[in-house]
């Protein structure tokens, strides 16, 4: 008997369905913005210009992040930079700032973006990660101005035809995810990393106020969203670790972040949502137990280069942790032999255990050859007992 895609997703998350090769997209199995163009130039099908068709080509399973509800990282802010498109992500502020170009030199353009940040981007490749020069929040005065944009009751935070939108979402046979924000990640976007890290020490009251504001925004919006839409999972975005560990101490996490996480995860669970995802790059060894204690239980991308080992995490946390990613993206640039070795070293075990969604450990970079990526997907399909893609 076939089951709905939504039920399939939940069953995998709940370890009730093992051995199922579920390649979720977008997001888990996703690409840097430049990839389609690079691959098309290298002979990939022209249909890759349409991201939906590209996902269909690879046979991915759909998941829907309800980005139309402005509660989390808004990933599709766009700006024209001298004829090139600069796509970037910003926190859920409303209204947005008016983007503008400030200056340019031979290679770069300095822009003021819709998130209130000043950033330098490359003229010939605005998508390459920018250098941030200035952030909107510097102190209490700038924060008080900025926080006006975080009112949960701003009407534009939800789609104009909210009832109609909710009905359309509820009718979909795909897992629906609700953005539930970020604590560390958004604060870093607002202040910049170094000023933020100093502020944890120098002005803890400011950090508290920013996190309380975010928590309030999320709690109000979660309630409103879940009154109308069936939600299968919730997602945080943090990116709060680097290569060898977290950007703040576990003690700071407990002091500043955990109480807010708990309020949100308790609300979600009280309304039937127990799949709570966090996206954080870097080494998560110290963070996973803290997130689990906070009620967050799904971790991605588990970057191998940062020392994450999904097999170890599975053995350590058992069915408490849902895992995604952890296939080393660097092997894509090497050889098919290494791709197979990487997959076989972990995916069969993880799939058999359940609660695992395979993907490379972050978006696929443009230096990954199309042919190698196709080989990876077919190798994963082989592990899952699926026929190779017919292309």
């Amino acid at each position, binding site marked *: 008997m076939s089951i709905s895609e939504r039920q399939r997703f939940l069953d995998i998350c709940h370890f009730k369905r093992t051995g199922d090769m579920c390649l979720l997209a977008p997001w888990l199995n996703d690409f840097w913005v430049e990839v389609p163009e690079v691959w098309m130039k290298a002979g990939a099908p022209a249909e890759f210009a349409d991201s939906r068709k590209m996902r269909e080509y690879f046979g991915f399973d759909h998941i829907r992040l309800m980005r139309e509800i402005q509660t989390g990282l808004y990933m599709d802010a766009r700006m024209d930079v001298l004829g090139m498109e600069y796509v970037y992500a910003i926190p859920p502020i409303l209204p947005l700032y008016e983007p503008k170009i400030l200056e340019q030199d031979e290679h770069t353009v300095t822009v003021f973006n819709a998130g209130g940040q000043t950033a330098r981007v490359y003229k010939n490749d605005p998508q*390459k*990660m920018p*250098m941030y020069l200035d952030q909107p929040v510097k102190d209490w005065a700038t924060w008080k101005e900025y926080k006006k944009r975080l009112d949960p009751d701003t009407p534009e935070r939800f789609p104009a035809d909210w009832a109609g939108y909710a009905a359309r979402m509820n009718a979909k046979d795909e897992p629906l995810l609700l953005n539930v924000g970020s604590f560390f990640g958004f604060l870093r976007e607002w202040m910049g990393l170094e000023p933020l890290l*100093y502020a944890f020490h120098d002005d803890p009251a400011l950090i508290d106020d920013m996190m309380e504001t975010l928590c309030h925004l999320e709690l109000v919006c979660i309630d409103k969203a879940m009154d109308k839409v069936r939600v299968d999972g919730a997602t945080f975005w943090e990116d709060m670790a*680097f290569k*060898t560990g977290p*950007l703040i101490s576990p003690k700071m996490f407990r002091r500043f972040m955990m109480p807010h996480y708990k309020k949100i995860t308790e609300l979600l669970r009280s309304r039937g949502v127990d799949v709570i995802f966090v996206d954080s790059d870097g080494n998560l060894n110290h963070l996973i137990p803290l997130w689990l204690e906070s009620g967050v239980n799904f971790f991605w991308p588990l970057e191998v*280069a940062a020392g994450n080992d999904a097999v170890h995490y599975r053995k350590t946390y058992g069915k408490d942790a849902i895992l995604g990613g952890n296939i080393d993206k660097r092997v894509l640039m090497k050889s098919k032999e290494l791709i197979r070795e990487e997959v076989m070293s972990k995916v069969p075990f993880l799939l058999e255990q359940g609660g695992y969604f395979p993907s490379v450990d972050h978006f696929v970079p443009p230096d990954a050859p199309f042919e190698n990526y196709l080989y990876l997907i077919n190798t994963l399909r082989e592990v899952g007992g699926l026929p190779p893609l017919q292309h």
Partner: protein
Amino acid sequence: MAWDSAAIADAVREGDDREAVSLVKSAIEEGVPPIEILETGLVPGIQQLGELFKDGEVFLPEVLIACRAMDRGVDELKPFLESSEMHKKGKVIIGTVEGDLHDIGKNIVRLMLECAGFDVVDLGVDVSPGKFVEAVKEHSPAIVAMSALLTITMTNMPEVLEALEKAGLRSQVRVMIGGAPITREYADQIGAEGFAEDCASAVGEAERLVKG
């Protein structure tokens, strides 16, 4: 109050910049040689902090505030010290390689190296091989340190090594590299003598290179 080098080290390690400055001023007034204040008070404090960071007992915010305490303590000593006394360990040129605008990791490494007594020339981000070569000619450093965040920009590191080789400067400097996608294997593969897993180990690696 009697001069207490351990108290200065504690203040630095704890990131208490006011206490560090106050203790350094007192020591100067007591006639303690400035170089002794630096070498037995401030520097051990930051070294202890570096060890704690390596052991996972403190994290980046603690590193930043400790460096700030160290820096403010050193500011008090500057009028009494020769530059060579403050930067005894040698000169380092540091930069993020061409095509890469990331500077957070590089900045923290610069801060840690300065705190540890290196004289650091920061070339910034998006540094071309030619700029590295020019800087080596101008500053004659002991070490060239390069950072890259992206797999697509780390490949510019060997180009810097090649440019140094072509300019006849390669034998005059030791090269160390770091950044999210960088591994010891990659450093070995491209012929860089040094590799730092993170900002704390960058100091130890730089010390190893200047000794070696």
